[in-house]
């Protein structure tokens, strides 16, 4: 790992020393590098307890394989959402009703737009009295708690939830999406994050957050009459992004006609405010004509048409390659080796899109562990790992600091407007002024913390020595702001 390089002077001394001494020096460094890599990529960085687990498991790779099973088990149990931020996960019927009431009140001239996130005192982060805002805030707060506190959420499950939410992105800034974002993340994404890809895709397709975000809820057969006799019809938005982003990829071999066909197949898929699932298929809104998608004929089959089409898209080789490429880029390298992508695509296809099996293939790939496959932390990585190193964020102050930092860094939680999701590469996130803003966050966070001594083995000697010269309140922040801490 590049940042664990031996500083220049000791290296000279080492060259003169015996081969045994050199070996003895290199081994703990390589072990620390593997621990750092496993903890930072399959979770959000080391904590004392997590390192202890890793050593007890018999090393980073054995730990990683255990984590896959632990995360899968956790995904099948309800999320342990701290009570103060649990509101966003209320039953969907309740959310629909509260949202309706909020809109009615606003129309009647009630609660208008008020202060922005940045201007809100931290003490009122989660309870502003404004329904949609509280839903958005509590959902974002949960993400910060889940990524930074391993006792709140299994770190690998938090990672996979981040990955799949980003792959099937929705935007908390779009009006009707707002109150549903957190519910979507926990019940559609988290629940299937280590399950089967096509189940994940269908859960996303049927969730109000996605139905509203890409306008599927409104897309109906051409010529349908609305409640006031107005003509309604097709909206291509979801059908296009389902192919381009969620499955095949832009070069996946589909045409504009395929986009129209898929949009027609999906007509009738809409929201159900009084159903616990939030979803219904409305036969009256469905286009009953014959369609042709990727060369396959679709005859009238109601809701089944859409389900078959989505499963078919999930099983295409182009989809396997796209998912494999994204996983490899997220977990291994901005430019992942082709052999790794091929192997992951095969594991994905051979297991019928079993995400647990695909993840196992990833951890068992030598490329995952190679020191030259470097990754630079995204702002989310950085914020979560800094909070995790200081014991995790469960209270409003650190959560508010993190949310504000992420907004300024250009990666607000649930805040990417377009369906492609955030980029995760260094070309996007490594820029001069942004590094200095990471230091702001780290130092502010560190002032109230005790020194995370367990990080010392992961920092270079020069860094350790330089930080030791500073007064105690500055030391935790400087550790988190150090160059070593920027990589994962």
């Amino acid at each position, binding site marked *: 790992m590049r940042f664990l390089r031996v500083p220049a002077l000791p290296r000279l001394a080492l060259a003169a020393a015996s081969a045994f001494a050199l070996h003895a020096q290199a081994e703990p460094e390589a072990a620390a590098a593997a621990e750092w890599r496993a903890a930072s990529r399959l979770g959000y960085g080391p904590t004392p307890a997590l390192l202890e687990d890793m050593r007890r498991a018999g090393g980073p790779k054995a730990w990683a394989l255990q984590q896959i099973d632990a995360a899968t088990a956790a995904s099948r149990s309800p999320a342990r959402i701290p009570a103060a931020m649990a509101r966003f996960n209320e039953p969907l019927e309740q959310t629909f009703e509260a949202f309706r009431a909020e809109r009615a009140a606003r129309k009647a001239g009630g609660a208008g737009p008020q202060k922005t996130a940045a201007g809100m005192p931290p003490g009122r982060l989660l309870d502003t009295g404004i329904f949609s805002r509280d839903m958005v805030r509590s959902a974002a707060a949960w993400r910060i708690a889940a990524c930074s506190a391993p006792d709140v959420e299994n770190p690998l499950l938090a990672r996979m939830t981040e990955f799949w939410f980003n792959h099937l992105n929705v935007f908390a800034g779009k009006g009707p999406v707002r109150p549903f974002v957190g519910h979507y993340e926990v019940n559609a994404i988290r629940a299937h994050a280590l399950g089967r890809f096509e189940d994940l895709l269908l859960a996303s397709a049927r969730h109000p957050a996605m139905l509203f975000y890409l306008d599927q809820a409104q897309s109906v057969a051409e010529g349908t009459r609305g409640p006031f006799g107005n*003509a309604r019809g097709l*909206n291509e938005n979801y059908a*296009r992004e389902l192919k381009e982003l969620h499955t095949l990829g832009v070069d996946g071999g589909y045409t504009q006609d395929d986009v129209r066909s898929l949009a027609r197949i999906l007509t009738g898929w809409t929201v159900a405010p009084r159903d616990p699932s939030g979803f219904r298929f409305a036969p009256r809104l469905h286009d009953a004509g014959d369609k042709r998608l990727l060369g396959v004929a679709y005859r009238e089959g109601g809701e089944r048409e859409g389900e078959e089409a989505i499963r078919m898209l999930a099983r295409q080789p182009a989809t396997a390659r796209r998912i494999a490429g994204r996983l490899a880029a997220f977990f291994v390298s901005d430019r992942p080796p082709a052999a790794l992508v091929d192997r992951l695509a095969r594991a994905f296809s051979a297991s019928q899109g079993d995400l647990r099996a695909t993840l196992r293939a990833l951890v068992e790939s030598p490329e995952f562990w190679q020191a030259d496959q470097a990754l630079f932390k995204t702002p989310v990585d950085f914020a979560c790992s800094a909070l995790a190193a200081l014991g995790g964020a469960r209270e409003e102050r650190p959560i508010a600091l993190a949310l504000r930092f992420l907004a300024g860094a250009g990666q607000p939680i649930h805040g990417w407007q377009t369906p492609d999701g955030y980029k995760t590469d260094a070309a996007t996130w*490594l820029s001069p002024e942004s590094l200095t803003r990471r230091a702001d966050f780290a130092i502010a966070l560190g002032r109230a913390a005790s020194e995370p001594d367990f990080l010392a083995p992961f920092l270079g000697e020069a860094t350790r020595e330089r930080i030791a010269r500073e007064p105690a309140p500055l030391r935790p922040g400087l550790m988190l*702001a150090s160059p070593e801490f920027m990589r994962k």
Partner: protein
Amino acid sequence: MNRRRFMRALGAAASALALPRSWAQAAPLLSNGRLVVVFLRGAYDGLSATVPYADPDYARHRPSIAIPAPDGGADAALRLDATFALHPALAPLLPLWQERRLAFLPCAGSPDPTRSHFEAQVQWEIGMPGRSNAPRGWLNALAGLGGGGRGPVAIGVGESNPKILSGPAKVRLIPRGNAAAREGVLANERARQALLDLYSGSDAMAQAFRQGADSRITSAQALMSEMQSADNGAAAAAGLLLDARHLGTLMRDNRRLRLGFLSAGGWDTHANQGAAAGLLANNLRNLGLALAQLRRDFAEPGDLVAVVSEFGRTAAENGTRGTDHGHGNTLWLMGARVAGGRWHGDWTGLSAGNLHDGRDLPVHHDFRSVFAQLLAAGFGLREEQIQDLFPGARFDPKLAGLVRAA
């Protein structure tokens, strides 16, 4: 097209292009002007911005979202000429049009037929339709031509590292909004020194940190003093307007900065986009205010502002009172050298037979040709330099009068 024909075609600009190489180097490139690119991400609906009110197909295609034709009413479009009118929310642009500082092309775009936002945006930003990636954006390549090692000549406000600015030339990037005006922990001398020591190495990250610390202090101080002097009772600016103000301040404060980049999202109006009021109107209002601000801050003879978007939207509204992904679109140019107060290029109307794939505005003018024209005439770029930025760019004779030579 060969070099000779290209230069002849550029007409007035040809004499500048023909100058001996040594002379051209003595007067650094970009010294005679500044360029600001505003990218509207998500494909804005140009047919609502520049309304072809006189075309009977316009209202027919858009029964619930057409902007009313100019008749003096509050909701009506503002007449520009016998063909086009301006969205009422863009009223701040009307004086610029009347001063002949503002022009547009109603059917510009990329020749690539993609309807993917993300693919199309990359192609625009690298200047290469049909290519999925390149190691640099074209604005970065242009910065590389104009720089001389003494700090960046390009600055981006808002995005973390936009593709158009990425590449080998150093650029300055500042965040959206008021965060740009804060020095943060760097104001604390002790912490600053410790951080600079931690990042004293020669690797890319250490260099980036030191450059960032330097430029951030400069930016924050310039913006802070500007804010204090400009706050006198004025309503707080937000969004694109605030970013535009920050860009203007920083490029005035540092004259080496010659290239600026701004962007705004929220233009992908598939549903309920509204007409004279609504979702799109709100976005257009912000855009109009931001462009009027840029007009004040970039008022030197050589300054140019271009407003672009990755593609247009369908001529007809869809089944949800919005518009889907289209092809050609309105591209705006602003500046003293722009042949303004008129629109340029071809316009073939909205009848079904004249639409691309029977649904979208065609692309009559390649965006590479527009920028080639702009950079050759406005900044004196030579053809090989233009080819380096926009491989395959061709001179478009219909755009010959778009920008007057420096």
